[in-house]
């Protein structure tokens, strides 16, 4: 397979740099999570050599955290499903239509993304309040979906445009309906892009906390992202605790990524088989 071919001597160097750039902070997070509050400000070699302890973890691992984790899963999955349901067709529609309206629609999507999240909290709060969606997981899912759909559509459109139109046309010649062509011909080819977009949506909504913090009125319903945001306050930052919590809340993400990475890779192999 072509992709196994080494792309020269530069690639390993780049990979090495990336390892350092992304590995060091992670190591730092893990190290800090094993320190006590006092050790956090060690200077010199004390930064790396110290006697580790896991109090930061034992302090934070309790039932409430599990509940928050479940909440995170529900929100991220729900957002992912809802976004894909409306953005995948929309991406396809905008990829295959021309004219002023689709162009304006694309521009509108970009503009919609520009509205700062902080500016949408209050109007959405009023809407959800009058519809009884406050303090409700569904409300947060809707808010996250509204936030991420323009992004998903913009991201999916090039993948759909990458599907050769000849295939769709041959399907049409064989008498398939537009929906059939979309489902059976286009989607399988754009699978890579859909999977990538789905992964991104899941990850972003997993980490989203502004809506979660504002639309959930009781802390018992906070997802992990909001619990994490709570650790930074003006009157006391528990650095080891924050880092421990960061590690704990990120493990599910890592698990998901490892699982879907294999699928992404397999999907790639399938598509290239002659």
């Amino acid at each position, binding site marked *: 397979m*072509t*992709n*196994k*071919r080494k*792309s020269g001597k530069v690639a*390993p160097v*780049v*990979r090495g740099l*990336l390892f350092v750039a*992304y590995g060091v*902070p*992670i190591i*730092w997070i893990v190290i*800090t999570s094993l320190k006590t509050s006092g050790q956090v400000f060690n*200077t010199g070699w004390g*930064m790396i050599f110290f006697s580790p302890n896991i109090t930061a973890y034992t302090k934070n691992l309790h039932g409430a955290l599990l509940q928050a984790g479940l909440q995170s899963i529900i929100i991220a999955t729900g957002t992912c499903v809802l976004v894909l*349901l409306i953005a995948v067709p*929309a991406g396809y*529609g*905008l990829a*295959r*239509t021309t004219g002023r309206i*689709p*162009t304006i629609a*694309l*521009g509108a999507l*970009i*503009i919609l993304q*520009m*509205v*700062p*999240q*902080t*500016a*949408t909290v209050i109007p*959405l709060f009023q809407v959800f309040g009058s519809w009884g969606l406050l303090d409700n997981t569904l409300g947060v899912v*809707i808010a996250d*979906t*509204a936030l991420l*759909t323009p*992004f998903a559509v*913009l*991201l999916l459109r*090039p*993948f759909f445009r990458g599907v*050769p139109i*000849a295939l769709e046309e041959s399907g049409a010649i064989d008498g398939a309906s*537009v929906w059939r062509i979309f489902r059976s011909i286009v989607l399988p080819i754009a699978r890579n*892009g859909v999977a990538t977009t789905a*992964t991104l949506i899941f990850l972003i909504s997993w*980490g989203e*906390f502004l809506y979660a913090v504002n639309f959930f009125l009781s802390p018992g319903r906070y997802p992990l*992202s909001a619990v*994490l*945001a709570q650790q930074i306050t003006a009157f006391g930052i528990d650095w080891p605790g924050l*880092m421990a919590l*960061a590690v704990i809340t*990120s493990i599910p993400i890592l698990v998901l*990524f490892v699982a879907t990475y294999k699928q992404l890779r397999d999907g*790639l192999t399938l598509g290239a088989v002659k």
Partner: protein
Amino acid sequence: MPTMTSRTMKKVGRRDSSAPSAPRKRTRRQIRFVFVIPATLFIAIFSVYPLIQLLRMSVSDVTPATLGSNWDFVGFSNFSKGFAEGTLGTVLSNTLVFVGIVTVLGLIGGLAAAISLRGSARGTGLLLGLMVFIWALPPVVNGSVWKFLLGNTGLFNSMLGLSGTSPIGYLYNQHLALFSVAIVNSWAVVPFNALVFRAAILNIDPEIFEAAQLDGARPFQEIRYVIMAAVRPTTLVLTVLTVVYGFRSFDFIYVMTYGGPGTVTTTLPFLSYLEAFVRYDFGLGSATAVITVVLVIVLAMVYARSVRREEREL
């Protein structure tokens, strides 16, 4: 064999242009527009409404006291107040520098990472995992980590200290602070761009690579002529998304410098946040947000124009 090569060459960066009769194509296209309806409805209710509220607030006097009741119309005084207070000039230039750095570094870094990670060399999976892990971490965590790493007693300055140099104020030196925060923000964005670029690169027909190799292309030429051309539409989208992200980004500034020292790292979104949620002048904050939106409209027009050009190539 010759037929295949020419067809595969056509695929790179261009659309297949075999055409059935024209009227049938047009009807097909109209039908496909139906696919957009669910998204349009949803967005109309939950995205357009807040935008309208934003615009209304930017021309009204809105404070917590008047939030629930009628807003007084004040015309453009929110906008002129912003300019009159004098900080807007600094903030504008800060924002442009910030967005520029994040976009350039984010795109170049993302593409370089994607190219070097497209194979299944040793450690690729682990590295991708590391990068996505970092990207998925909340900015609160990432920002705090870098705040430590860049501090006077942090990793970088400690290494400098070994060679006897006095510490560098990455986050409090008024000339360095903005660059430091922008670079950290780029670092946080690269994994996303890398993932998307990578998906696009993986979509390139392997036959094209084989054909290029048969023609004797070296890796660098492979990159320049095959990969770059194939990811052009993706580059366009990612540029737009990264620029938009840069114009909206405020979490890192909030955690690392809070806009300081002074106002050196205050960008438009941060200013909007300060005005709306620290000074509680929602009208002023909305006006600043609207200015940001206007700046991006220009960008949106550029993107839309290139989309039209894309279609003319069809």
